[in-house]
């Protein structure tokens, strides 16, 4: 088992290197590294020349890549072109906000989605199953930003009508969030709607997948054996079938992380949350490629990490996986 984890870890290293090169080459080639500066009337030709020399922009791409990696490792991605605020300081501030959002959404939607999937599969072609199917089709067809806006409209109007504050529709916290329990409550009230929005995006995926996975397992021989042994239906489903049907869902949940980050980009934008998505969009508007590359690297590392966890979990959950 340990060697398996070690080998998977080692395998991630070339993937990480290749991804970082792809990010650097891709971003440098399609974008002008100095694009944001050139349109800035305050930047003199001298400053531009200085930065060109500082970032080694006259060198070929592989050499530039080398300098960039050194900068990323030794100076935590350095500073953006347009300000002196270190990139890592900003990232360090926004990452926990986005992680709270994404992890909460992931856990809640996994719990609900898997339950819906199991019930749909047990009661296949029932009214519940058809309703769940219809809603998941709606979920697949719905742009996240639109759903977010509709929720925002609904809850804002609810507040305006009744003047009772259940959820906030903008920002991460109130002007005076308080401390301890009050702070947590305040944060939860702010994040509740964004989390709901992200959950809807995920629920459709997880419930459909769980349903299909369970339906496949239910028809296998060992489930029939379990029934033949005289186990109760509940035991057969929960102990024998669901356990195995969950295995592919775990992989899906890990791979879905990228999609969740994508959803977080638009959701944070709408609810004015100071998270990674907001930071990303802001720097895209500034055309500043250094924070963008740093952002992409952080996300890539996270995705690779989640894939690693999925692989290891797969090994733990599925005894058929061999480690050698």
């Amino acid at each position, binding site marked *: 088992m340990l060697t398996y984890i070690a080998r998977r870890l080692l395998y991630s290293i070339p993937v990480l290197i290749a991804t970082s090169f792809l990010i650097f080459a891709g971003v440098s080639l399609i974008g002008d590294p100095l694009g944001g500066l050139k349109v800035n009337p305050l930047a003199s030709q001298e400053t531009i020349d200085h930065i060109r020399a500082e970032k080694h922009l006259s060198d070929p791409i592989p050499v530039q890549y080398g300098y960039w990696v050194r900068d990323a490792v030794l100076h935590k991605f350095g500073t953006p072109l347009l300000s002196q605020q270190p990139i890592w300081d900003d990232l360090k501030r926004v990452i926990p906000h986005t992680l709270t959002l994404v992890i909460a959404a992931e856990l809640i939607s996994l719990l609900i989605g898997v339950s819906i999937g199991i019930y749909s599969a047990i009661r296949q072609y029932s009214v519940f199953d058809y309703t769940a199917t219809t809603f998941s089709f709606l979920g697949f067809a719905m742009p996240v930003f639109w759903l977010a*806006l509709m929720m925002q*409209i609904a809850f804002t109007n609810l507040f305006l009508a009744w003047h009772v504050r259940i959820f906030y529709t903008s920002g991460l916290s109130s002007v005076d969030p308080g401390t301890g329990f009050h702070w947590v409550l305040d944060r939860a009230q702010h994040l509740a709607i964004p989390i709901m929005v992200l959950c809807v995006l995920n629920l459709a995926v997880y419930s459909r997948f769980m349903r299909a996975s369970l339906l496949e397992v239910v028809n296998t021989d060992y489930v029939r054996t379990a029934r033949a042994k005289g186990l109760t239906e509940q035991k057969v489903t929960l102990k024998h079938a669901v356990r195995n049907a969950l295995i592919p869902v775990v992989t899906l949940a890990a791979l879905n992380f990228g999609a969740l980050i994508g959803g977080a980009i638009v959701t944070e934008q709408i609810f004015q949350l100071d998270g990674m998505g907001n930071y990303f969009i802001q720097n895209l508007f500034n055309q500043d490629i250094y924070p963008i590359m740093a952002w992409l690297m952080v996300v890539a590392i996270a995705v690779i990490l989640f894939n690693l966890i999925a692989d290891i979990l797969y090994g733990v959950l599925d005894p058929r996986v061999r480690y050698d």
Partner: protein
Amino acid sequence: MTDHSLERDTSLAAVGGGGAAAVEAGAGAYAYDATQQAYESGLEVEVRSQWYYARKRFVRHRLAVASLIILVVILMAGFLAPWIAPYGFEGYDVNHLEQAPTLAGGHIFGTDLLGRDYFSRVLYGIRTSERVAFIVMLLATVIGTAIGMVAGYYSRWADNLLMRFTDLILTLPALAVLLVAAALMGKGDQYRVAIILSLLLWTTLARIVRGQFLSLREKEYVDAAKAAGAGDLRIMFRHMLPNSVGPIVVFATLTLGVAILLEAYLSFLGFGVQPPTPALGKLIADGQDVSSNDWWLVTFPGLTIVLIVLCINFVGDGLRDALDPTQRVRA
């Protein structure tokens, strides 16, 4: 061997009226006899191709057919926007500023702060979205099929390269990659957006076609074609491609929906289709600032997107069932 394969063999043969019923029963040998009888008795024999069966299976899928009809109506409405929109895209109705949707007033989707009719604007938005989506569908399908064919047929290094490359692309969230490309390539028109989307979306199809070609390569009829002296190109295009047409058609259909969604995301965030070109995502973004009062400015363009994508997905589902030759034709 299951009765599926028997059924497929006989359905490929020309079967007459009596033969068709026999095929339904799944009795291959009997169907063959019936066909022979039909021939010998001088009855007219109707040729039924795989497409005939696919069409039949699709028509049986009521939801898919209904979706197809709604989809065609919406897409035609968008296509004909300049002729059927009651007001122009930038047309003002100064007597009805910021009006909620009414049937009587003639603004069924309401108007915005400047008195622009949102029904007309949505029609124009559909026009842009569908144009982008069709270009993406065409480009992504052609690129994806071509690369998938090469990777699947020649295998080895081409295959390795493709798989590793798509693996790397999949490491990053699709939306982030699209946003970076769209933001850094400078502002442009809808065609630029379409090209950026196609450059990302071809990868899925390439993997599908590759998988198909990897398995088709081992089939006997490919060996037979090789033995008969057919060249690589002929084998790929005449023998293998027609056998992978099902997944390709389904992918192309679903890509239409994905492209409309992604274009909406980009335009909403301000990196997609640039004004003054109308786009559904941009309409929603415009309505965002006054959304708590003028809910209709956000609601209707969004509902349009949901309806279009929903219909496309249902049609895609219907096609998936229809183009699968192992599916039964329930006559």
